[in-house]
């Protein structure tokens, strides 16, 4: 069965399922969330991405009702569940949400079946219906054969799946995920990522997902909210965030990027591109993508977009000399550090013959991959 999210009529924009409006939260003098606003559309997975301490988990828990914010509003399906101004704070158990915890929170004194059935028991579902739903849910996470096992005897990955089944068995409209995969090893994490995504599509549940892992965010999300120090840096689809970061932080956090500063050279601008001159006189052509063009510009170039060649490349713009400083073998790719005038550029290439340090090379990049950063 493949249920795709509801596609609303094109005449009006879809009403958001979750609205977070100017949310603020402090613990004892420390401001963890300093004014965060975003919406989550029905059926989409929105990921809060950022380094530790950026406030993403706190925001998630505020939506859940496990933390008390200090200002702002939270609305779910149009209903206000939190409003500082109006003195509303609906208890977590009454918000109709569901959550998967980082530590799985599997209850050791119950069996797998009982763990999953809990939410249904709270809702006083009949025994036959409980059995039916629980088994279906366990099937979906391939844990059916473990139903009568004591929950404490499961491995990490197994517990994670049970936690998942438990979270959606009572058909919540929203699923919150608090770094659910961070305690798993790399291989398992990669597999679970895909499973989770498939599950989310299948059930069509609106999800808010918190992670610090870039790959996870890019692979699973419909939209990403990048956070830093309690504030939102950028919101957008994974593609937008990756291709068009609007700040140095996002550029470097979401994939690795080189930052180049320079003076705007309006005389060298073409119709499509803008030009800047670096401090050592090199001319770099890039694209503004609608960002304001000032006198001083900073552009971001992804390491994978730079090309190294020993022969002069055919392109007209953005071809420079450089010399190899160091190559670092990383298995699937090689990281090459190139001296380029006054600064270093980092280039990520497919695995190649190591070039000797000191070797002169040509570096080139297409102007469309040189992205102007926002103010």
């Amino acid at each position: 069965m493949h249920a795709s999210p509801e596609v609303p009529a094109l005449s009006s924009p879809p009403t958001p399922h979750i609205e977070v409006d100017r949310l603020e939260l402090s613990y004892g003098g420390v401001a963890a969330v300093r004014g965060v606003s975003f919406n989550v559309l029905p059926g989409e997975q929105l990921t809060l991405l950022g380094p530790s301490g950026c406030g993403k988990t706190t925001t998630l828990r505020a939506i859940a009702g496990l933390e008390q914010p200090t200002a702002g509003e939270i609305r779910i399906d149009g209903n206000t569940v939190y409003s500082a101004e109006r003195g509303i704070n609906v208890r977590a158990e009454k918000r109709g949400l569901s959550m998967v915890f980082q530590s799985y929170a599997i209850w050791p004194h119950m069996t797998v079946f009982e763990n999953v059935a809990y939410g249904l028991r709270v809702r006083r579902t009949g025994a036959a219906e409980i059995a039916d739903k629980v088994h279906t849910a366990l099937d979906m996470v391939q844990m059916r054969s473990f139903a009568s096992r004591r929950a404490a005897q499961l491995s990490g990955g197994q517990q994670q799946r049970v936690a998942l089944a438990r979270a959606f068995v009572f058909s919540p409209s929203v699923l919150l995920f608090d770094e659910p995969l961070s305690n798993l090893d790399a291989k398992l994490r990669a597999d679970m990522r895909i499973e989770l995504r498939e599950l989310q599509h299948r059930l069509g549940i609106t999800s808010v997902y918190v992670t610090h892992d870039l790959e996870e965010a890019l692979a699973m999300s419909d939209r990403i909210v990048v956070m830093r120090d309690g504030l939102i840096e950028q919101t957008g689809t994974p593609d937008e965030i990756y291709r068009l970061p609007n700040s140095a932080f996002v550029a470097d956090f979401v994939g690795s990027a080189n930052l180049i500063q320079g003076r705007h050279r309006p005389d060298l601008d073409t119709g499509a591109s803008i030009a800047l001159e670096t401090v050592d006189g090199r001319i770099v052509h890039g694209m503004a993508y609608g960002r304001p063009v000032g006198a001083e510009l900073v552009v971001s170039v992804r390491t994978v977009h730079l090309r190294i060649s020993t022969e002069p490349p055919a392109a007209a713009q953005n071809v420079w000399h450089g010399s190899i400083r160091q190559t670092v073998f990383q298995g699937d790719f090689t990281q090459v550090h190139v001296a380029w005038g006054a600064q270093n550029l980092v280039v990520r290439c497919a695995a190649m013959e190591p070039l000797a340090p000191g070797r002169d090379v040509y570096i080139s990049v297409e102007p469309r991959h040189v992205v102007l950063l926002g103010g």
Partner: protein
Amino acid sequence: MRSATSPISAQQIAGYGVAAVAAILVLYPVFFLFQAALDVGDPQARPPTAYGFDNFNGILQYPRILLNTLTVSVAATVMALAFGFVMAWILTRTNVPGRHLFEQLMAVPYYLTPLLGALAWSLLGAPESGFINQVWRALGGSGHLIDINTAYGIAWVMALFEGSVAFVMIAAVMKSMDPALEEASQVIGAGRLRTMLRITLPLVVPGVLGAAIFVFAEMLGSFAAALVLGLPSRYYVITTAIYQLVQQYPPKIQVAAAMGVSLFAVMFFMLFLYRRIVMAGSYVTITGKAFRPRVTDVGPLRYVLLGVCLLYLLTAVGLPLATLLYASLQKIAVAFPTAGNWTLDNFRVAMTMNAVRSALTNSLLLGFGTATIGVVLMGLLAWLIYRSRLPASGLIEYVVMFPQAVPRLVFAFGLMWAWVVFPIPIYGTLWLLLIAYITVFLPLGVRTIAGVMLQIDKSLEECAQMCGAPWAFRVRTVTIPLLAPGLVAAWLLLFIASIRELGASILLMGPHSKVITPSIVESWFGTSSELTAALALIQTLVVALAMIVLVAVTRRVGAHPVD
């Protein structure tokens, strides 16, 4: 902007209700204690006619007592720490055989009560009639080898029993130490001894210091050993002085109350210090992950250390019991009895005495009541203080821990006055003792349950919330089952603590509410030592049987591995 609030919930009602009960239980008697201490009018008049500080001046007439108290407490603390440290080292850091068994056995001295130890050591170490001294003389020595009726004698007995408390605290500290720290030292080339002195000791010192302060505070308020061993030679410490002042004729209640308040002030300060050192009021002795400390292979030394462990347990447990048995079977207890000196009369008479019949039943009943009500009340309090987000939970924590700073005897004082005027006639009944026990055990129970509670990951309860479970449902289906092993342990602890209680009971016993431990003391002061020994043994046996039954029954509750 107004802060958001949710409507009053069942959770909040329960929380505030429980907090109110605790506050009344603790503060109501303390008020009366202070009132008595500040009463400088006619002692018989109630309410007091005049207030002042004169009673505190009265204490200054007894500098000897203060000096004695200090001497005994310091000596006892040092000895208890020594026992505790050595035993903790042996049992957590070396590969002595039977480690785990011994760790369990270390709790037995606590169950036995210092009173029994004091009685037995009095029989062993009295300068003239003590068995050890009789043996000494028989072997050709002159005079006496030991005199238990001195400061160091009292300290010795106190330390033997308090040693197990010190052991638990220091062992916990050692278990929470990361072995990698020592391994790093050894990898660099430092030898075992050097590592211990330069790395281990400094790491362990803060914890040991905390234990030292805690133990010292307990010693200040200690009563049983000083009562039995100190009174004959008129060696008073502050608690026995208070007792004497209250019991003598005419009683000097006001000075006694002032002494009690002073002692309370000192103990309060000590415990305040303790909490500062042990990091802001966390009563969890094992925080988060406990490391598996590196066990040193000490080779054949193992058996020597095994001997040391056995020696401690024998001295603290075996020897007193054997001595009491030996004495109880004689007409007049001596080290080398003649054939005609053996008798079963003492046991026969003991069985007819109130102290055995009604006191035993009362104590067992009270034990049940205190433990059961206590676990519920203290469980709620622990949750309220450490888990709920109700305001003033910090304040409640202070109120609950208050009785720790007040010696039981002193607290009983306040309880006496407080409940005598209470409209409901509970004075002189078991109900009063029940209230007294629950109050004085608040710190013990809350601390034990909190320790278990804090080890339970918050997310387990939060998850239940996210599944839609309201508070009461959560508590019933998740919190309590997870807490069950801890609750059972707390129940047993409260049960045994109420049976061995002396300081409060001795002032609050009435005609229909006799309990075991004070009745042993009464017997000591009012009948022969042989009869007392028989009495004490009968009571210990019955209590031990009760404990065995209880532990067997509760073992089925089992320990679920808590993630």
